[in-house]
């Protein structure tokens, strides 16, 4: 499978301040790649460096196999970008802005702009400066998508969108992927990433902390286990099991986190009379926070 984005120890420093450091990622064609991290972690700096708005202070980046600096214009012709805080001349109407984008891309006509405007219920006749943040964001999404690019770079794309429009956006991304498009999606919304991404890179303090398939990330994670017995259990019996942590005994109920295989837990429970057993998968957010917590302490 062709690699669409490839960075090798990409670094960008702001004087003595941290930007990003040693970021090496590889995004395959047709993949929805999540780029996850809290505000200030380096997500936007990475995207702006890939787009050649910032020049790297180390390492390199290639998109479509082309150098992100030397071939920036050729690359930008093939991608659609939604900046984190989408802004354009507020005096223009949506139609005027999209017409400018089409002309600058050498495209005759509005592409799929009208259909997208219909789907996102965007008002293209009003001046962009008169629109609410969410409605401005719709214009931003349309300008990123209307020319049917090979790669979408989206920085916090659902900011300001109401829940219905967020659903519509996720549907559009899904359809785009089905047509073979590649998405690089920066977000701090774990639910969003969980729903649309194939893989997720976690960035913290400018460095890549992990790159995992969303499914693997879940698989690597723990379970919340809660078992109710017919009498007070011996907590020590469960505490001895490898991978069990945060154990609490409350009357006949024992609760803990169990990572790895659950077989020893089930076997230990089976030695008693079990009245009820709950097994809960953690949300990606919990996994993410656990991951961050562990890395943060090291």
């Amino acid at each position: 499978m062709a690699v669409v984005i490839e960075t090798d120890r990409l670094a960008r420093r702001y004087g003595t301040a941290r930007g990003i450091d040693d970021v090496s990622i590889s995004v395959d064609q047709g993949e929805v790649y999540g780029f996850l991290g809290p505000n200030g972690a380096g997500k936007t700096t990475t995207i702006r460096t890939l787009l050649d708005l910032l020049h790297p202070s180390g390492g390199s980046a290639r998109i479509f196999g082309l150098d992100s600096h030397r071939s920036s214009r050729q690359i930008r012709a093939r991608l659609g970008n939604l900046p984190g805080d989408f802004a354009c001349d507020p005096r223009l109407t949506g139609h005027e802005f999209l017409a400018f984008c089409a002309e600058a891309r050498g495209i005759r006509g509005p592409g799929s702009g009208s259909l997208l405007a219909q789907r996102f219920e965007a008002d293209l006749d009003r001046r962009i400066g008169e629109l609410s943040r969410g409605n401005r964001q719709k214009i931003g999404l349309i300008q990123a998508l209307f020319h049917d690019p090979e790669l979408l770079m989206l920085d916090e794309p659902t900011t300001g969108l109401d829940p219905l429009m967020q659903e519509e956006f996720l549907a559009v991304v899904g359809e785009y992927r089905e047509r073979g498009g590649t998405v690089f999606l920066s977000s701090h919304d774990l639910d969003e990433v969980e729903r649309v991404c194939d893989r997720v890179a976690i960035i913290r303090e400018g460095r890549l902390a992990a790159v995992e398939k969303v499914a693997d990330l879940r698989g690597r994670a723990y379970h919340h286990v809660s078992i109710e017995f017919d009498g007070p259990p011996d907590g020590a019996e469960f505490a001895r099991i490898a991978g069990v942590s945060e154990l609490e005994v409350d009357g006949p109920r024992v609760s803990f986190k169990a990572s790895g295989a659950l077989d020893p837990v089930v076997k230990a429970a089976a030695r008693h009379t079990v009245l009820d057993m709950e097994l809960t998968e953690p949300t990606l957010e919990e996994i993410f926070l656990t991951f961050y917590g562990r890395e943060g302490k090291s």
Partner: protein
Amino acid sequence: MSVAVPSASAVSARERRRAPEWPVTLRAVVRRGLLDRRRSVLIWGLSIGIYGAFMAAIYPSIQTSIEKIAKSYPSGLKEAFGVQAMSTVEGYIHAEMFSLIVPLAIGYFAIRAIAGATVSAEEHGHLDTILALPISRAVLIVGSYLVAATATLSILALTGVMTFLGGRIAGTHISLGLVAAGVMGVWPLALFFAGVAALTSGALHNSRTVTGIALGALVAMYALDLAGRLAHGLGPIRWISAFRYYGAPMRDGIDPASFIGLAGAGVLLLIAGTVLFKRRDVLH
């Protein structure tokens, strides 16, 4: 919300994959820039034009008084402000408008046009959107320079037409050739200071700083040229002022060497600014 975006998009694969040639993107930038500035061009052109028409129209009624007042001026001041030539309507309009007000106004307009399309757009986050399109930075800054050049030329043309009509309606023998030379003579000044703004935009990120430096250069060069004309000791350093080459085209006609030299200096400043703009980061 049930409308699907077709998989076979209206945009052909060929169109999608190739970056447009630079003239296509330059045309888009210039066209958009001129559309954005059409209202301000009209407002500035009509405002300065009405002022010019008024000055030309009142000349016959104040000509005698001006000649009397002019006689009382020291010779240095008369030379510095072109008062000695107020015996003609063109000389009067030059002294009242084209020796200071129009060059400053047009220079300021040109500076703002460049700063608005570059550093101000950067501050407001617009460049993140524009430079994600296949528009090179060179095209962006050269396009904004062409917009500034066209817009200032349009303002000057409006000013010239209205000034000429005002003079003719009032019965003066105002010369179309000298009025045309007068307004065209300001244009290379606009190109020069647009170049100064392009250079500073290439190096800096703050629109107030860019505008301040370029406008400061405009005022300082005017003051230096004026001081050089008033104090002969400062005369030898007038060459560093753009106003030294501006002269008084409304009164004396255009000096082609100065016209080309000033415009050429503006273009050189633009080239230097473009090189810097391509090398620097776009901050937000």
